[in-house]
């Protein structure tokens, strides 16, 4: 967990942060007792000093002085951001970084889940790297047509011998005798 700096905590204690930073820092304080204690300490100091200076001529215009100090602090912060932009980005709240990364992370996560759930991802199990586009191939007991993520295979019942023949036009044929019916059966799969 990365803690906000002293200046931000001080501005927070005085209620002088912008509403967005105020909101983010409030969320941080909810789960960080250390920073919460420091903010309480700054608030107590502010109260004690304010009470001690009440009625003093030297600091009669206390409100003007406080506004001047706040402006100086803001000026210092802005100058620091100009000099060290990278540091400012590093200190961006995490929820903001998550939103920025979401368009990258989300597709990766979706892809990971899809691949995990697809037990037989065709591009992972077959020989799709050999060709681009449509592929027909014979496997142990079928003729398979594949194109991208789509696939169709005609499967041959286990049993007798199978003869595979290919036609140079792009057709693959399997011929076998069906053990149950005794009929010769011929499968054809066409590339187009």
């Amino acid at each position, binding site marked *: *967990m990365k803690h906000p700096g002293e200046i931000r905590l001080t501005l927070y204690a005085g209620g002088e942060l912008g509403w967005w930073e105020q909101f983010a820092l409030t969320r941080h304080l909810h789960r960080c007792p250390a920073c919460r204690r420091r903010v309480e300490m700054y608030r107590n100091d502010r109260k004690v000093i304010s009470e001690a200076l009440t009625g003093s001529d030297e600091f009669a215009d206390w409100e003007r002085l406080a506004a001047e100090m706040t402006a100086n602090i803001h000026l210092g912060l802005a100058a620091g951001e100009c000099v060290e932009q990278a540091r400012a980005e590093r200190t961006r709240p*995490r*929820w903001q970084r*998550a939103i920025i990364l979401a368009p990258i992370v*989300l597709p990766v*996560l*979706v892809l990971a889940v*899809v*691949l995990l*759930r*697809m*037990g*037989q*991802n065709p591009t992972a199990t077959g*020989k799709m790297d*050999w*060709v*681009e*586009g*449509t*592929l*027909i*191939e*014979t*496997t142990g007991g079928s*003729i398979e*047509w594949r*194109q991208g*993520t*789509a696939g*169709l*295979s*005609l*499967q*041959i*019942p286990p049993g007798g*011998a199978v*003869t*595979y*023949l*290919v*036609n*140079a*036009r*792009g*057709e693959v*044929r399997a*011929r076998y*005798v*069906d053990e149950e*019916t*005794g*009929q*010769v*059966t*011929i499968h*054809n*799969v*066409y*590339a187009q």
Partner: protein
Amino acid sequence: MCTRNRIVLALFVGCWIVSAQPPATEARSSLKVDFPKDSPVAVVGFDMGDSVTTTRGSAIVIDLRTLLTLRNAGSRRLRGVTLLVSTQESAVGGRASVSVPSLNVEPGGTFPVRINLRLLRPLAPAGPLVTVTLDGALFEDLSFFGPNLLNSRRSMMVWELEAQRDRRYFKSVLSASGPEVLREKLLESLARQAARPRLDVQVTRGRATNIDAARTVQFAFLGPAGAPVEPVAGSAMVSGGEARATSLEVINRSKRTVRYFEVGLILRDDTGREYLAGSVPASDPDLNLAPGARTRVTQDSTLRFMAAGGRPLAIAGLTGYVSQVEFADGSIWIPDRRALADPRLAEVVTPSPEEQRLADLYRRKGLQAVIDELSKF
């Protein structure tokens, strides 16, 4: 838990919920069997068996185990059917067919056709994902019914002519030499089928991404005697077990116009072993090859062959032989049994579907079953 972890967890849970949606459709509703109303082959019913539909991530997997029961609603004996199996991907490919040749179904008789298929596709809108229709039915008088989208008429005609040729052959063996010689012929057929090496194949349209250096291999040609067309030259680019850019030049030696032909493709590997790999068909769908005319066939698909089990195969030579010719009037030429008795062809050419069926019938039920079967034709 910090904010970032909460966001990551929420994203994961969201993705999981999306991917864990129940199957978009049930297996039965995935299949539509749709025959023409005037079809001479009717659907009696279909059993979906243990078909299942499952969802895997963003894809749906349909395992169909279908046994269709069809009836010959025509007035002649049915010799074969071809069913077109199409999917919603058919617009970009993905068509298949299941054919059953060598049938002998009397009018009113029923017969089964088994279709086992697996479809993998992205999650789809509702509606049937697989449609089975009739592409063609062939009857004993060689009349044909069907839309013929897959040119199944030609294939079924070839199978039927081969069946008639081989039944004639086995009947002549039986009548001339007796049952024991018929048994020997059936045993020889079974032995040849068992000895034929099996090839696995991949095919794709266009060029593969394989960057191995390819060389041009010229075709050699075998008869058969009497073929209406004669291949005179041919070549393919070969690299390892891969052949592409197949090209053939043929002459029409007959006195009739040729509409279609196929040249059987025999591979020889680097050990000298030969395999029947398939065929090179005519590439021009509007071919009208006049008597004496020449034409060139070019096919841009890439074929990759592997010995059974995925063992690499190195193509050392290519041999072609004319395996079928269709004339302009629709009649078909196939090699006769004598031409196929050429030792080199006999060793590699696959038996016809009918010879395969009869030999298998002998294996399962014995010689008398084959004799009884032959007597039905």
